[in-house]
């Protein structure tokens, strides 16, 4: 417990919907830099932002984020 790394498919899901980082950032109400750092696994978003991203992308949070190895 506590050592798992969070992975995400944000870049793939965003690209599938034809969105740029700036488009997604605008829709989620954050900066493009935030989206970039989440995609590069530098920044772990809050639950609120994770839920917002899921809503914007029209999928569940689990489809975007997962624990490494799951």
């Amino acid at each position, binding site marked *: 417990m506590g050592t798992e790394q969070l992975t995400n498919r944000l870049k793939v899901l965003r690209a599938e919907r034809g969105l740029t980082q700036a488009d997604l*950032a605008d829709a989620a109400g*954050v*900066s*493009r*830099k*935030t989206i970039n*750092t989440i995609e590069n696994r530098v920044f772990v*978003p*809050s639950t609120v*932002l994770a839920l917002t991203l899921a809503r914007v992308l029209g999928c569940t949070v689990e489809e975007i984020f997962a624990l490494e190895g799951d």
Partner: protein
Amino acid sequence: MIGAATIERTRQVLLAVTGLACLAYAVLALAQNRPDPLWWWVPGAAGSVAALGILAVAQFAGPKAARQAMDEHYRALELRAAARTFWAGLLLAILAGVFSALGWFDPATLLAALGTAMAGCYLCLLVFMDVRAG
């Protein structure tokens, strides 16, 4: 069109200038061994101009862009920069104590240098982290 990116760039430039002004003041204070190596109000004025500049750009950009520029990632960077500055401040305070005990610098000079160095350290670190985040 002024957006979140414009606010971010403005903030980076103005905070970097303020941070460098504070660091320069600290270095000059130590180099000249006096608490007012140049006009004493320069660091404060730089900070005030930066605050007004950022506020003005955010006002023009609107509330949505301002919220985007000040999102949770930026707040996390602020906390990280503050945490690292805390340790840097402790180290600087220890050094200042040693310098004072050795009689190398006047206590007023050390106080001025310590205050401006800590502010400069925080601002430069924050800008560096913000720029590096892409």
